[in-house]
Protein backbone atom coordinates (compact mmCIF):
# COMPACT_ATOMS: atom_id res chain seq x y z
CA UNK A 1 0.00 0.00 0.00
CA UNK A 2 2.82 2.38 0.88
CA UNK A 3 6.28 1.65 -0.40
CA UNK A 4 9.28 3.89 0.11
CA UNK A 5 12.43 2.85 -1.72
CA UNK A 6 15.83 4.49 -1.22
CA UNK A 7 14.40 7.90 -0.56
CA UNK A 8 17.06 10.55 -0.28
CA UNK A 9 16.92 14.30 0.32
CA UNK A 10 19.76 16.61 1.12
CA UNK A 11 19.25 19.72 3.22
CA UNK A 12 22.77 20.91 3.69
CA UNK A 13 23.31 20.10 7.31
CA UNK A 14 20.76 17.30 7.41
CA UNK A 15 20.36 14.39 5.08
CA UNK A 16 17.61 11.84 4.65
CA UNK A 17 19.65 8.89 3.54
CA UNK A 18 18.29 5.91 1.57
CA UNK A 19 15.11 5.57 3.58
CA UNK A 20 13.17 2.42 2.71
CA UNK A 21 10.17 0.66 4.21
CA UNK A 22 6.93 -0.98 3.18
CA UNK A 23 3.41 -1.12 4.57
CA UNK A 24 0.85 -3.69 3.43
CA UNK A 25 -2.91 -3.10 3.41
CA UNK A 26 -4.69 -3.84 6.66
CA UNK A 27 -1.91 -2.92 9.05
CA UNK A 28 -0.76 -0.09 11.22
CA UNK A 29 2.82 1.10 11.05
CA UNK A 30 4.32 3.27 13.72
CA UNK A 31 7.09 5.62 12.65
CA UNK A 32 9.27 6.49 15.61
CA UNK A 33 12.40 8.46 16.18
CA UNK A 34 13.71 11.33 18.27
CA UNK A 35 12.96 14.93 17.36
CA UNK A 36 14.80 15.98 14.26
CA UNK A 37 15.35 12.41 13.08
CA UNK A 38 13.54 12.99 9.83
CA UNK A 39 9.99 11.80 10.52
CA UNK A 40 8.16 14.90 9.37
CA UNK A 41 10.53 15.29 6.44
CA UNK A 42 9.81 11.75 5.28
CA UNK A 43 6.09 12.32 5.50
CA UNK A 44 6.31 15.62 3.65
CA UNK A 45 8.27 13.86 0.92
CA UNK A 46 5.63 11.13 0.70
CA UNK A 47 2.95 13.79 0.31
CA UNK A 48 5.06 15.64 -2.27
CA UNK A 49 5.27 18.81 -0.23
CA UNK A 50 9.02 18.56 -0.60
CA UNK A 51 10.87 17.45 -3.72
CA UNK A 52 12.91 14.30 -3.26
CA UNK A 53 16.46 14.13 -4.56
CA UNK A 54 16.28 10.45 -5.46
CA UNK A 55 14.35 7.29 -4.68
CA UNK A 56 10.91 5.94 -5.37
CA UNK A 57 7.65 6.27 -3.51
CA UNK A 58 4.71 4.12 -4.52
CA UNK A 59 1.26 4.42 -2.99
CA UNK A 60 -1.50 1.95 -3.90
CA UNK A 61 1.07 0.57 -6.31
CA UNK A 62 1.39 3.82 -8.26
CA UNK A 63 4.11 6.44 -8.40
CA UNK A 64 3.25 9.16 -5.95
CA UNK A 65 3.95 12.03 -8.32
CA UNK A 66 2.67 10.69 -11.62
CA UNK A 67 -0.68 9.79 -10.07
CA UNK A 68 -0.63 12.41 -7.34
CA UNK A 69 -4.22 13.52 -7.64
CA UNK A 70 -5.89 10.12 -7.65
CA UNK A 71 -3.66 8.92 -4.83
CA UNK A 72 -4.38 11.90 -2.59
CA UNK A 73 -8.08 11.36 -3.13
CA UNK A 74 -7.69 8.17 -1.14
CA UNK A 75 -5.37 9.47 1.55
CA UNK A 76 -6.63 10.91 4.80
CA UNK A 77 -4.08 13.21 6.26
CA UNK A 78 -3.56 14.53 9.78
CA UNK A 79 -0.79 17.02 10.50
CA UNK A 80 0.67 17.93 13.84
CA UNK A 81 0.04 21.60 13.17
CA UNK A 82 -3.23 23.05 12.07
CA UNK A 83 -3.09 24.52 8.59
CA UNK A 84 -6.65 25.63 8.44
CA UNK A 85 -7.89 29.11 7.72
CA UNK A 86 -8.17 30.37 11.26
CA UNK A 87 -10.85 32.94 10.54
CA UNK A 88 -13.29 30.41 9.19
CA UNK A 89 -15.66 28.19 11.13
CA UNK A 90 -15.53 24.40 11.14
CA UNK A 91 -18.41 24.18 8.70
CA UNK A 92 -16.97 26.80 6.39
CA UNK A 93 -13.64 25.02 6.36
CA UNK A 94 -15.36 21.71 5.71
CA UNK A 95 -17.30 23.23 2.81
CA UNK A 96 -14.04 24.33 1.25
CA UNK A 97 -12.39 20.93 1.67
CA UNK A 98 -15.25 18.55 0.87
CA UNK A 99 -15.57 19.28 -2.87
CA UNK A 100 -11.99 18.20 -3.46
CA UNK A 101 -12.75 14.60 -2.56
CA UNK A 102 -14.69 12.28 -4.79
CA UNK A 103 -15.89 10.02 -1.97
CA UNK A 104 -16.82 12.63 0.59
CA UNK A 105 -19.36 11.40 3.11
CA UNK A 106 -21.09 14.26 4.86
CA UNK A 107 -23.08 12.03 7.17
CA UNK A 108 -19.94 10.47 8.48
CA UNK A 109 -18.43 13.88 9.04
CA UNK A 110 -21.43 15.07 11.01
CA UNK A 111 -21.30 11.90 13.07
CA UNK A 112 -17.67 12.42 13.96
CA UNK A 113 -18.19 16.07 14.79
CA UNK A 114 -20.99 15.09 17.10
CA UNK A 115 -18.96 12.28 18.65
CA UNK A 116 -16.04 14.62 19.25
CA UNK A 117 -18.26 17.27 20.78
CA UNK A 118 -17.29 19.97 18.32
CA UNK A 119 -19.45 22.96 17.48
CA UNK A 120 -19.63 23.24 13.69
CA UNK A 121 -20.11 26.99 13.85
CA UNK A 122 -17.13 27.61 16.06
CA UNK A 123 -14.30 29.61 14.49
CA UNK A 124 -11.15 27.59 14.07
CA UNK A 125 -8.96 30.10 15.83
CA UNK A 126 -11.02 29.57 18.97
CA UNK A 127 -10.41 25.84 19.04
CA UNK A 128 -7.87 24.27 21.38
CA UNK A 129 -5.08 22.14 19.97
CA UNK A 130 -6.93 18.97 20.86
CA UNK A 131 -10.10 20.13 19.18
CA UNK A 132 -8.23 21.11 16.04
CA UNK A 133 -6.74 17.66 15.93
CA UNK A 134 -10.15 16.08 16.36
CA UNK A 135 -11.38 18.21 13.48
CA UNK A 136 -8.44 17.07 11.35
CA UNK A 137 -9.24 13.50 12.19
CA UNK A 138 -12.91 13.94 11.33
CA UNK A 139 -11.93 15.35 7.95
CA UNK A 140 -9.41 12.58 7.31
CA UNK A 141 -11.97 9.88 8.08
CA UNK A 142 -14.87 11.35 6.16
CA UNK A 143 -13.88 10.71 2.59
CA UNK A 144 -13.43 6.94 2.66
CA UNK A 145 -9.67 7.13 2.61
CA UNK A 146 -7.78 3.87 2.25
CA UNK A 147 -4.54 5.14 3.72
CA UNK A 148 -4.39 7.36 6.75
CA UNK A 149 -1.14 9.22 7.28
CA UNK A 150 -0.63 11.03 10.55
CA UNK A 151 2.32 13.20 11.54
CA UNK A 152 2.61 13.38 15.32
CA UNK A 153 -1.14 13.60 15.78
CA UNK A 154 -1.15 13.00 19.50
CA UNK A 155 1.66 15.21 20.74
CA UNK A 156 0.25 17.84 23.07
CA UNK A 157 -2.88 15.85 23.79
CA UNK A 158 -3.93 14.37 27.09
CA UNK A 159 -3.80 10.60 27.63
CA UNK A 160 -7.55 10.31 27.79
CA UNK A 161 -7.98 11.69 24.34
CA UNK A 162 -5.04 9.75 22.99
CA UNK A 163 -6.83 6.57 24.01
CA UNK A 164 -9.94 7.73 22.18
CA UNK A 165 -7.86 8.25 19.08
CA UNK A 166 -6.50 4.72 19.37
CA UNK A 167 -10.03 3.36 19.62
CA UNK A 168 -10.95 5.18 16.45
CA UNK A 169 -7.91 3.78 14.70
CA UNK A 170 -8.85 0.29 15.79
CA UNK A 171 -12.24 0.81 14.20
CA UNK A 172 -10.64 1.97 10.98
CA UNK A 173 -8.41 -1.07 10.81
CA UNK A 174 -11.33 -3.46 11.10
CA UNK A 175 -11.49 -3.00 7.34
CA UNK A 176 -8.52 -4.97 6.07
CA UNK A 177 -8.31 -2.84 2.95
CA UNK A 178 -7.15 0.16 4.94
CA UNK A 179 -3.77 1.02 6.41
CA UNK A 180 -2.52 3.57 8.87
CA UNK A 181 0.89 5.22 8.98
CA UNK A 182 1.50 7.12 12.16
CA UNK A 183 4.57 9.05 13.22
CA UNK A 184 5.05 9.87 16.85
CA UNK A 185 7.53 10.12 19.62
CA UNK A 186 4.97 8.97 22.17
CA UNK A 187 5.79 5.31 21.83
CA UNK A 188 3.33 4.11 24.44
CA UNK A 189 0.53 4.76 21.98
CA UNK A 190 2.15 2.39 19.52
CA UNK A 191 3.00 -0.27 22.05
CA UNK A 192 -0.50 -1.59 21.88
CA UNK A 193 -1.84 -0.99 18.44
CA UNK A 194 1.05 -1.00 15.97
CA UNK A 195 1.68 -4.02 13.79
CA UNK A 196 4.95 -2.73 12.39
CA UNK A 197 7.48 -0.27 13.71
CA UNK A 198 9.90 1.74 11.61
CA UNK A 199 12.59 3.49 13.59
CA UNK A 200 14.44 6.41 12.07
CA UNK A 201 17.42 8.21 13.56
CA UNK A 202 19.55 10.94 12.02
CA UNK A 203 17.93 10.49 8.65
CA UNK A 204 18.58 6.77 8.46
CA UNK A 205 16.28 3.82 9.06
CA UNK A 206 17.47 1.79 12.02
CA UNK A 207 14.94 -0.98 11.53
CA UNK A 208 11.51 -1.66 10.06
CA UNK A 209 10.00 -4.79 11.54
CA UNK A 210 6.88 -6.31 13.06
CA UNK A 211 6.44 -4.91 16.54
CA UNK A 212 6.13 -8.34 18.18
CA UNK A 213 9.40 -9.40 16.65
CA UNK A 214 11.15 -6.29 17.95
CA UNK A 215 9.87 -6.72 21.46
CA UNK A 216 10.85 -10.37 21.46
CA UNK A 217 14.31 -9.89 19.95
CA UNK A 218 15.46 -7.09 22.20
CA UNK A 219 15.89 -7.37 25.93
CA UNK A 220 16.90 -5.18 28.84
CA UNK A 221 19.60 -6.81 30.88
CA UNK A 222 20.23 -5.71 34.46
CA UNK A 223 22.97 -6.87 36.70
CA UNK A 224 25.95 -6.15 38.86
CA UNK A 225 28.84 -4.13 37.46
CA UNK A 226 31.25 -6.92 38.22
CA UNK A 227 29.82 -8.85 35.30
CA UNK A 228 30.91 -6.26 32.79
CA UNK A 229 34.06 -6.73 30.80
CA UNK A 230 35.11 -5.54 27.35
CA UNK A 231 33.54 -8.56 25.69
CA UNK A 232 30.18 -8.26 27.38
CA UNK A 233 30.07 -4.53 26.78
CA UNK A 234 30.24 -5.18 23.06
CA UNK A 235 26.99 -7.14 23.20
CA UNK A 236 25.07 -4.08 24.29
CA UNK A 237 23.44 -1.61 21.97
CA UNK A 238 23.21 0.89 24.78
CA UNK A 239 24.45 0.65 28.33
CA UNK A 240 23.87 2.62 31.47
CA UNK A 241 26.25 2.08 34.35
CA UNK A 242 25.62 3.43 37.84
CA UNK A 243 27.14 2.90 41.27
CA UNK A 244 24.57 0.25 42.05
CA UNK A 245 24.62 -1.74 38.85
CA UNK A 246 24.15 -1.64 35.09
CA UNK A 247 21.22 -1.69 32.74
CA UNK A 248 21.55 -2.21 29.02
CA UNK A 249 19.74 -2.96 25.81
CA UNK A 250 20.79 -5.96 23.78
CA UNK A 251 19.45 -7.70 20.72
CA UNK A 252 20.71 -11.02 21.97
CA UNK A 253 19.33 -11.59 25.47
CA UNK A 254 19.59 -15.36 25.15
CA UNK A 255 23.37 -15.10 25.05
CA UNK A 256 23.33 -13.27 28.34
CA UNK A 257 21.01 -15.82 29.86
CA UNK A 258 23.31 -18.62 28.82
CA UNK A 259 26.40 -16.85 30.09
CA UNK A 260 25.18 -15.44 33.34
CA UNK A 261 22.18 -17.56 34.23
CA UNK A 262 20.38 -16.25 37.27
CA UNK A 263 22.81 -13.51 38.19
CA UNK A 264 21.11 -11.12 35.81
CA UNK A 265 17.56 -9.99 35.21
CA UNK A 266 16.20 -9.86 31.69
CA UNK A 267 13.13 -7.79 30.99
CA UNK A 268 10.96 -7.10 28.02
CA UNK A 269 11.92 -3.72 26.60
CA UNK A 270 9.48 -0.96 25.78
CA UNK A 271 9.70 0.84 22.47
CA UNK A 272 10.87 3.84 24.41
CA UNK A 273 13.77 1.85 25.89
CA UNK A 274 14.81 0.72 22.44
CA UNK A 275 14.61 4.22 21.05
CA UNK A 276 16.41 5.89 23.93
CA UNK A 277 19.26 3.40 24.12
CA UNK A 278 19.76 3.32 20.37
CA UNK A 279 19.85 7.09 20.12
CA UNK A 280 22.13 7.51 23.13
CA UNK A 281 24.65 5.01 21.84
CA UNK A 282 24.77 6.85 18.52
CA UNK A 283 25.47 10.08 20.26
CA UNK A 284 28.47 8.56 22.04
Amino acid sequence: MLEVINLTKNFGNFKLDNVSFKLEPGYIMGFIGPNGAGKSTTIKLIMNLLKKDSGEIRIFGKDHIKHEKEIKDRIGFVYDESFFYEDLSINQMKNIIAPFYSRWDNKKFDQYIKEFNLDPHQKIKKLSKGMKMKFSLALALSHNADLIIMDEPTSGLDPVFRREVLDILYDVIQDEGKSIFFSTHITTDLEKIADYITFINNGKIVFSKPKDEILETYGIVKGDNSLLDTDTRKEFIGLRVTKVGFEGLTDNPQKFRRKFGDSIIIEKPTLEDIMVYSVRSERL
Partner: protein
Amino acid sequence: MIALIKKDFKLNFAVKSSLISMVMFVPLLLFITEINDIVRIFHFIVLSYGYILTNIPFKYDVKDKSHLLIQSMPVRKRDIVISKYIFAIISYCIALAFSLLIFTALDLLNIGDSINLSFNDIKETFLAYILISSINLPTQFRLPPKLANIVNVFIYVFITNHFVFIPNSTTIANFLTNTIANNDFLVLIVSMIIYLVSMIISIYLYKTRDLY
Protein backbone atom coordinates in the same frame (compact mmCIF):
# COMPACT_ATOMS: atom_id res chain seq x y z
CA MET B 1 -10.68 23.82 -10.44
CA ILE B 2 -14.05 25.19 -9.48
CA ALA B 3 -13.46 24.11 -5.90
CA LEU B 4 -10.24 26.15 -5.88
CA ILE B 5 -11.91 29.24 -7.28
CA LYS B 6 -14.78 28.92 -4.86
CA LYS B 7 -12.27 28.73 -2.03
CA ASP B 8 -10.67 32.03 -2.98
CA PHE B 9 -14.12 33.50 -3.28
CA LYS B 10 -15.10 32.38 0.18
CA LEU B 11 -11.90 33.63 1.71
CA ASN B 12 -12.65 37.07 0.38
CA PHE B 13 -16.31 37.28 1.15
CA ALA B 14 -17.11 34.84 3.89
CA VAL B 15 -14.88 36.38 6.45
CA LYS B 16 -16.05 39.57 8.10
CA SER B 17 -12.60 40.91 8.78
CA SER B 18 -11.47 40.73 5.17
CA LEU B 19 -14.72 42.25 3.94
CA ILE B 20 -14.36 45.19 6.27
CA SER B 21 -10.73 45.82 5.39
CA MET B 22 -11.66 45.67 1.72
CA VAL B 23 -14.49 48.12 1.96
CA MET B 24 -12.46 50.50 4.09
CA PHE B 25 -9.25 50.35 2.13
CA VAL B 26 -9.95 52.41 -0.93
CA PRO B 27 -11.89 55.25 0.66
CA LEU B 28 -8.99 55.52 3.06
CA LEU B 29 -6.48 55.76 0.24
CA LEU B 30 -8.59 58.31 -1.57
CA PHE B 31 -8.62 60.34 1.58
CA ILE B 32 -4.87 60.35 1.75
CA THR B 33 -4.12 61.10 -1.85
CA GLU B 34 -5.42 63.97 -3.86
CA ILE B 35 -6.94 63.10 -7.14
CA ASN B 36 -9.28 65.52 -8.75
CA ASP B 37 -9.96 63.74 -11.94
CA ILE B 38 -12.88 61.39 -11.46
CA VAL B 39 -11.73 59.16 -14.24
CA ARG B 40 -8.45 58.73 -12.41
CA ILE B 41 -10.31 57.86 -9.26
CA PHE B 42 -12.24 55.24 -11.17
CA HIS B 43 -9.07 53.68 -12.52
CA PHE B 44 -7.56 53.71 -9.10
CA ILE B 45 -10.51 52.01 -7.43
CA VAL B 46 -10.80 49.28 -10.04
CA LEU B 47 -7.10 48.46 -9.96
CA SER B 48 -6.92 48.55 -6.20
CA TYR B 49 -9.89 46.34 -5.56
CA GLY B 50 -8.83 43.87 -8.20
CA TYR B 51 -5.40 43.73 -6.63
CA ILE B 52 -6.75 43.26 -3.10
CA LEU B 53 -9.19 40.53 -4.06
CA THR B 54 -6.47 38.58 -5.81
CA ASN B 55 -3.99 38.89 -2.99
CA ILE B 56 -6.08 38.23 0.08
CA PRO B 57 -6.01 34.42 -0.47
CA PHE B 58 -2.21 34.58 -0.73
CA LYS B 59 -2.07 36.47 2.54
CA TYR B 60 -4.03 33.71 4.19
CA ASP B 61 -1.59 31.13 2.89
CA VAL B 62 1.18 32.99 4.59
CA LYS B 63 -0.70 33.54 7.83
CA ASP B 64 -2.18 30.07 8.26
CA LYS B 65 0.21 28.05 6.10
CA SER B 66 -2.85 26.75 4.34
CA HIS B 67 -0.98 26.10 1.12
CA LEU B 68 0.31 23.00 2.86
CA LEU B 69 -3.24 21.91 3.52
CA ILE B 70 -4.25 22.48 -0.08
CA GLN B 71 -1.24 20.57 -1.32
CA SER B 72 -2.13 17.52 0.74
CA MET B 73 -5.52 17.35 -0.95
CA PRO B 74 -6.09 15.84 -4.39
CA VAL B 75 -5.08 18.90 -6.46
CA ARG B 76 -2.47 19.38 -9.07
CA LYS B 77 -0.10 22.29 -8.66
CA ARG B 78 -0.89 23.26 -12.21
CA ASP B 79 -4.56 23.56 -11.33
CA ILE B 80 -3.78 25.74 -8.35
CA VAL B 81 -1.89 28.18 -10.57
CA ILE B 82 -4.51 28.21 -13.31
CA SER B 83 -7.30 28.79 -10.82
CA LYS B 84 -5.47 31.80 -9.43
CA TYR B 85 -5.09 33.29 -12.88
CA ILE B 86 -8.76 32.76 -13.57
CA PHE B 87 -9.65 34.20 -10.21
CA ALA B 88 -7.53 37.27 -10.90
CA ILE B 89 -9.69 38.00 -13.92
CA ILE B 90 -12.84 37.35 -11.95
CA SER B 91 -11.53 39.75 -9.31
CA TYR B 92 -11.10 42.37 -11.96
CA CYS B 93 -14.68 41.90 -13.13
CA ILE B 94 -15.97 42.17 -9.59
CA ALA B 95 -13.88 45.29 -8.96
CA LEU B 96 -15.14 46.77 -12.21
CA ALA B 97 -18.77 46.00 -11.47
CA PHE B 98 -18.40 47.33 -7.97
CA SER B 99 -16.83 50.56 -9.14
CA LEU B 100 -19.42 51.07 -11.88
CA LEU B 101 -22.11 50.53 -9.29
CA ILE B 102 -20.66 53.12 -6.97
CA PHE B 103 -20.19 55.66 -9.69
CA THR B 104 -23.64 55.13 -11.13
CA ALA B 105 -25.07 55.57 -7.65
CA LEU B 106 -23.09 58.75 -7.08
CA ASP B 107 -24.24 59.99 -10.45
CA LEU B 108 -27.88 59.27 -9.76
CA LEU B 109 -27.63 60.98 -6.41
CA ASN B 110 -25.93 63.90 -8.11
CA ILE B 111 -22.94 63.79 -5.81
CA GLY B 112 -19.69 65.17 -7.15
CA ASP B 113 -18.92 65.85 -10.76
CA SER B 114 -20.66 63.77 -13.29
CA ILE B 115 -18.41 61.12 -14.67
CA ASN B 116 -17.95 60.33 -18.28
CA LEU B 117 -16.60 56.88 -18.56
CA SER B 118 -15.74 55.64 -21.96
CA PHE B 119 -15.03 52.13 -23.00
CA ASN B 120 -11.41 53.18 -23.30
CA ASP B 121 -11.20 53.64 -19.58
CA ILE B 122 -12.19 50.08 -19.04
CA LYS B 123 -9.65 48.93 -21.58
CA GLU B 124 -6.93 50.94 -19.88
CA THR B 125 -7.66 49.56 -16.46
CA PHE B 126 -7.84 46.06 -17.88
CA LEU B 127 -4.46 46.45 -19.49
CA ALA B 128 -2.90 47.89 -16.36
CA TYR B 129 -4.43 45.14 -14.31
CA ILE B 130 -3.19 42.38 -16.60
CA LEU B 131 0.29 43.84 -16.44
CA ILE B 132 0.26 44.07 -12.66
CA SER B 133 -1.05 40.52 -12.32
CA SER B 134 1.40 39.09 -14.82
CA ILE B 135 4.21 40.19 -12.54
CA ASN B 136 2.39 39.86 -9.25
CA LEU B 137 1.28 36.24 -9.57
CA PRO B 138 4.61 34.64 -10.45
CA THR B 139 6.27 36.39 -7.53
CA GLN B 140 3.61 35.00 -5.20
CA PHE B 141 4.23 31.53 -6.52
CA ARG B 142 7.95 31.62 -6.22
CA LEU B 143 9.28 34.04 -3.72
CA PRO B 144 9.11 33.65 0.02
CA PRO B 145 5.97 35.51 1.12
CA LYS B 146 7.61 38.53 2.75
CA LEU B 147 9.76 39.20 -0.27
CA ALA B 148 6.83 38.64 -2.60
CA ASN B 149 4.83 41.20 -0.67
CA ILE B 150 7.53 43.84 -0.96
CA VAL B 151 7.97 43.23 -4.67
CA ASN B 152 4.24 43.33 -5.25
CA VAL B 153 3.70 46.55 -3.40
CA PHE B 154 6.39 48.13 -5.56
CA ILE B 155 4.80 46.86 -8.76
CA TYR B 156 1.38 48.03 -7.62
CA VAL B 157 2.59 51.48 -6.70
CA PHE B 158 4.65 51.83 -9.87
CA ILE B 159 1.90 50.89 -12.25
CA THR B 160 -0.89 52.70 -10.49
CA ASN B 161 1.30 55.77 -10.44
CA HIS B 162 1.68 55.69 -14.14
CA PHE B 163 -1.93 55.08 -14.85
CA VAL B 164 -3.53 57.09 -12.17
CA PHE B 165 -1.45 59.77 -10.60
CA ILE B 166 0.87 61.11 -13.19
CA PRO B 167 -0.88 63.33 -15.67
CA ASN B 168 -1.04 62.56 -19.33
CA SER B 169 2.29 64.08 -20.13
CA THR B 170 4.39 61.01 -19.27
CA THR B 171 5.54 59.00 -22.18
CA ILE B 172 4.45 55.61 -20.89
CA ALA B 173 0.93 56.65 -20.07
CA ASN B 174 0.71 58.54 -23.35
CA PHE B 175 2.08 55.66 -25.31
CA LEU B 176 -0.36 53.25 -23.78
CA THR B 177 -3.37 55.49 -24.09
CA ASN B 178 -2.57 56.18 -27.72
CA THR B 179 -1.84 52.57 -28.51
CA ILE B 180 -5.06 51.49 -26.93
CA ALA B 181 -7.05 54.11 -28.74
CA ASN B 182 -5.62 53.04 -32.06
CA ASN B 183 -5.05 49.32 -31.91
CA ASP B 184 -7.11 48.03 -29.09
CA PHE B 185 -7.56 44.62 -30.56
CA LEU B 186 -3.85 44.18 -30.93
CA VAL B 187 -3.26 45.44 -27.44
CA LEU B 188 -5.78 42.99 -26.10
CA ILE B 189 -4.11 40.06 -27.83
CA VAL B 190 -0.66 41.06 -26.68
CA SER B 191 -1.74 41.53 -23.11
CA MET B 192 -3.48 38.15 -23.05
CA ILE B 193 -0.35 36.54 -24.44
CA ILE B 194 1.70 38.20 -21.72
CA TYR B 195 -0.81 36.88 -19.21
CA LEU B 196 -0.61 33.34 -20.57
CA VAL B 197 3.17 33.39 -20.64
CA SER B 198 3.13 34.59 -17.06
CA MET B 199 0.84 31.66 -16.19
CA ILE B 200 3.12 29.13 -17.79
CA ILE B 201 6.09 30.58 -15.94
CA SER B 202 4.13 30.46 -12.68
CA ILE B 203 3.25 26.81 -13.21
CA TYR B 204 6.90 25.99 -13.70
CA LEU B 205 7.98 28.04 -10.70
CA TYR B 206 5.39 26.53 -8.41
CA LYS B 207 6.09 22.96 -9.45
CA THR B 208 9.76 23.26 -8.71
CA ARG B 209 9.31 24.88 -5.34
CA ASP B 210 9.60 23.18 -1.97
CA LEU B 211 6.76 23.97 0.38
CA TYR B 212 7.82 23.87 3.96
